[in-house]
């Protein structure tokens, strides 16, 4: 069986050692290499062609988000799992916009890392449960304080289905196949969802889904 090749990028030896142990415990994973900063991670991703890069957000020389963007540009087939100390939506959204599939908090990295790497390798989204919780709390507080309405209530059941599948990382074609709809209809649903939720991009849509607990 072909093993998943994982590149670890973190500027701290201790953290990297911890990650290496977790990855090495999985029989179907192999550590392809280790990078100490963003620049090195981009270079190693190009030469080692890993399936998944596990990347720390805050790194010297080139931060993880920028490194993620460059890796995804140069090697779209390599997926990125972002590791961060922050559950703030600013980080999550920018990581998603840079092309990351999964977003893990360092606190819970050892528990969820294997799942996150597998999900990312399959092209699916994965978020630490705590991230969704923080995003949801922010969202609810804002609704309560400003008296705005919960836009989720505006979606039809079919639109909610499409929202979940798109947020999970499925393409319009995949969604059309599994719901027995035409691609055109799915595209229309997507556009209506974006309009109703006032979202501008797929990363924002994924963030919304994480916040609402639709995906995790």
């Amino acid at each position: 069986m072909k093993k998943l090749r994982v590149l670890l990028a973190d500027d701290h030896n201790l953290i990297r050692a911890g990650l290496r142990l977790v990855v090495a415990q999985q029989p179907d994973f192999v550590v392809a290499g280790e990078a100490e900063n963003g620049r090195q991670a981009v270079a190693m991703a190009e030469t080692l062609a890993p399936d998944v890069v596990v990347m720390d957000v805050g790194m010297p020389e080139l931060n993880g988000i920028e490194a993620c963007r460059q890796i995804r540009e140069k090697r779209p087939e390599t997926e990125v799992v972002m590791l961060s100390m922050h559950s703030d939506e600013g980080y999550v959204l920018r990581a998603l916009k840079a092309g990351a599939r999964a977003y893990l908090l360092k606190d819970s990295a050892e528990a969820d890392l294997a799942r996150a790497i597998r999900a990312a390798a399959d092209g699916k989204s994965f978020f630490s449960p705590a991230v969704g919780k923080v995003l949801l709390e922010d969202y609810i507080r804002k609704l309560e304080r400003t008296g705005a309405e919960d836009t989720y209530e505006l979606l039809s059941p079919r639109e909610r289905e499409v929202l979940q599948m798109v947020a999970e990382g499925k393409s319009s074609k995949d969604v059309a196949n599994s719901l027995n709809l035409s691609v055109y209809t799915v595209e229309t649903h997507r556009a209506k969802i974006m309009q109703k939720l006032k979202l501008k991009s797929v990363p924002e849509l994924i963030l919304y889904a994480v916040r609402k607990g639709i995906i995790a």
Partner: protein
Amino acid sequence: MCGWWDKVDDNKGVPRETPDQPLPRALHWVLTIVFLCLLGIMLGSGLAALHDLDQMHDAERAARRVLAYRSEQEMLSQLDAIRRLFERNDLLDSLELEILRQSDELRAWNDRQLQLTDQSMVAQFAQLQSSLTRSIVLSLASGFLLIGASMLYIFRLEGQMSGRYAELARSRAELEQLSARLVEAQETERRKISRELHDEVGQTLGALLVDVGRLSAALPDARPEIKNQVGHMKSVAERAVQSVRNLALLLRPGMLDDLGLVAALEWQGREVSRNSHVEVDVESENVAEDLPDDYKVTIYRLVQEALNNAVRHSAARTARVRVEQTDGHIAVMVSDDGQGFDPQRQRGLGILGMEERVRRLGGTLAIDSHAGQGTTVRAELPV
């Protein structure tokens, strides 16, 4: 650490405004006074001369009157003498002789009187001329003296003034330099401590947390008290990680380096919303990602301070942060719907700190606040 926004008395503030140069105004006054004095002297001496002339005129008239009166008296006395001669019935010859003699005497007397009057007139005119000359010379001399003295005074004042102005400008420049260095030093120090906390303490604790997590995962069948112990260790480590992270973020938000200004401001807004009663809305437009670090830090600290004030002093319910970049400058606005204050009277160190940071970059800061009408802080920075 947070002391720079604490309140201080009003009068402890550093003088901000340089006084306008008062020199042209003083000069104006001095010249006016000199001019008035000169005018007064001229007028005075002119009046004195007129008065002299008037006096002379009177004297002349009096002299003429005296002369006429005396001639009449003289004539009368001569006629009396002639009458007396007739009464004595003297000879015609002697009469004729007497008349001739009398008339000669009269003429001689008249000549003498005329000469005397002439002399006195000449003397009076000479006196008038000399008095006029004297007063003209006097007024000219005093005028020149006054002009000289006031010029001297003005030059001296001017010298003193420019000396003081230069001194003031120098000490102000020094003060600015000093406070700029202070701000810089503070920022560098914060970044260093934050980096140290985050990298060393935070990461070590993080690694510990990972280890404890693995330990607890590796002990599924252990005794409950050991599992409890490990669980407790994990929560302690988590708390430590959290507090170190918060401390590091307060000192220097990593977002500023990782994600740029806009993300850091949005994060800050959410953070304030999470931890206070104020709901913060952050908007930004056209803000360049590659702003120089000075600008990022200045705007970030400004917004941090303004939001802090809104939370601590204003009892606001909502606050709005708006950052907009247009050609050549960035406008930052933080407004709240709190109770407001009088920015002329209540100036905390925090506001001074904001002013200092903004001025370092050549920008301006305006605080608009009235009791009961909320507060708006506006800053404009040239880019």
